[in-house]
């Protein structure tokens, strides 16, 4: 089974390595499970952030990579998750689990109401509309200051602890990341995933095949929004303090960049892109002021030389290696 879609910016091949996926996933889980035992508080915090952002990126890739729709608005859903959970549990004293469920429902509802008008637009207009949503979300945080603490911020919700707080936040994030990866993989390889990729390649052709683009796009938006909302909740649990600066539209751009630079319609791509964003500044030992410069330049260089993203680069290297091996045989 080897399906290749070559279309408008979407290249996906369903790999034969189904067993390979399970092995990789288990290896990844084990590795990520062991790392915190040899890390200090700071690295643990970074790893937790990585898991949270990767979770969001994996969800966003369903919309951007598979379904081919731009979205610069997911920081809005992320913020909704964080502040929803925080306000419900801290201000109204709702038990944490119930707050989480309610916040998720709220996120889904908001996603639906954003999808209905947004999907009447396409391409650049859609991108700007989603950007506008991110701005509206950040404005709302400040506007609802009595609830959200506005610019001063508010305290994060506390969770019942069974271990060191940092460790617990990390394992929770890791758990959701693994679940999110499995769900995403299932979706991508299902009928829904194929419909998404059909819509991304050519909408009119998809319609003639009996696929309703509007429904599938809406589904993609809602699912990726759910991922972002849950990611926001995990973020709230991990942080000690929430403030509106973290949820700026630039975070949306960062998520989008993570997906595209890593490689669209690719799980590994989303992980690579997130890893780049979270760990590159640390590796290069640069301070937070210079980090965005490097990140911006990395985006430029990567897309210039590797249009398929980092995953495309690795695929090409593997192909070269395979070809060389074949030539030698």
């Amino acid at each position, binding site marked *: 089974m080897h399906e290749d879609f070559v279309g*408008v*910016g979407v290249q996906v091949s369903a790999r034969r390595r189904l067993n390979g996926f399970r092995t990789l996933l288990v290896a990844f889980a084990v590795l990520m499970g062991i790392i915190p035992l040899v890390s200090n508080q700071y690295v643990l915090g970074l790893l937790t952030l990585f898991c949270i952002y990767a979770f969001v990126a994996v969800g966003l890739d369903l919309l951007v990579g598979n379904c081919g729709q*731009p979205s610069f608005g997911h920081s809005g859903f992320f913020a909704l998750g964080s502040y929803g959970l925080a306000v419900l549990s801290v201000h109204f004293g709702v038990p944490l689990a119930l707050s989480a469920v309610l916040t998720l429902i709220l996120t889904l509802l908001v996603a639906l109401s954003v999808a209905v*008008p947004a999907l*009447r*637009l396409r391409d*650049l*207009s859609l*991108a*700007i*509309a989603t*950007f*506008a*949503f991110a*701005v*509206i979300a950040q*404005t*709302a945080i*400040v*506007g609802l*200051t009595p609830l959200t603490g506005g610019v001063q911020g508010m305290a994060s919700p506390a969770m019942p602890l069974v271990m060191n707080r940092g460790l617990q936040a990390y394992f929770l994030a890791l758990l959701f990341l693994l679940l999110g990866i499995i769900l995403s993989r299932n979706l991508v390889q299902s009928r829904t995933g194929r419909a998404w990729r059909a819509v991304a390649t*050519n909408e*009119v*052709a998809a319609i003639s095949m009996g696929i309703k683009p509007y429904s599938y796009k809406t589904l993609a938006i809602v699912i990726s929004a759910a991922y972002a909302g849950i990611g926001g909740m995990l973020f709230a649990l991990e942080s000690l303090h929430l403030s509106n600066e973290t949820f700026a*539209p*630039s975070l949306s*751009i960062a998520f*989008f*960049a993570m997906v*595209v*630079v890593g490689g669209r319609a690719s799980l590994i791509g989303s992980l690579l892109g997130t890893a780049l964003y979270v760990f590159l500044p640390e590796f290069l030992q640069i301070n937070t*002021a*210079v*980090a*965005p*410069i*490097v*990140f*911006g*330049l*990395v*985006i*430029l260089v990567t*897309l*210039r030389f590797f*249009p398929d993203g980092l995953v495309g680069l690795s695929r090409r290297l593997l192909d070269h290696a395979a070809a060389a091996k074949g030539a030698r045989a």
Partner: protein
Amino acid sequence: MPVGTLFIQQVVAGLASGALYALLALAVVLVFRVSRVANFAQGEMAMISTFVAYLLMERTGMPLLLALFGDLLFAGVLGFILYFAIARSMSAGDPLNVTISTLGLQIALNAAALSVWGETQPFPFPAIVSVSPVRVGSFLISQLHLAIIAAVLLAALGLFLFFRYTMAGLAARAVALDRTVAALMGIPVERVIAQSWILGSVLGALAGAMFAPLTFLSSFMMQGFLLKAFSVAILGGMTSWPGVVVGGLLFGVVENVVSGYVSNVWQPAISYITIILVLLLRPAGLFSTLYRGRV
């Protein structure tokens, strides 16, 4: 001060900032139509050009007009360099990649400006005309606002005439319409695209130079500005100049009036909801007809 006067002042201020959004939007639309790239770095390019003007005045004591000239020259060169680095080298690939590259560029430029000038901003920037108010009828209106509106309208008119009546303008329109056919007709497509980037950068720098006296020069002065410019560009349907100008003026007025009379905090949300509503009612923009793409 009577309510009427305040309202008129808000409207004029709104027209002025709206005019600036329109100017930057014109730059965006120009680059988008001719080179098919949504240049998200346009704002930061303008910001850096304006900083160049500031440096010229600070370090060499140049008078404002001369510094502005140097600023626009720099902007043109910058536009060309970026055309070469981004649009030209990535023209064969996916347009989405180029757009994201401009996002990356925006991030990098912004952070670079912040690290170079971050410590002591914002800086005051002189205006061409004095900021003292002038009497119009029974109202006191800022000269600067009037000058900005006039300047942008002149620029828009100039652009309109350029595209309508000159050969270079015709070539640009041809390239925007269909690159292959334009090339077949003997139009140097790459040169026209480079020109569009240069002109776009110059227009952006002009907008920046007029914006700086209003809000003080800083590395983050353009951040919100660009998104509004893009929204205005889309209001104009990305195809019609009058749409962009009218859309910009309208947006500026709505923004200012809402900010003054409804709520300062919620104003961005209201502005953007307005844009989304307009887009829903008229997805092609205020004045354009909808162009259907080929399957």
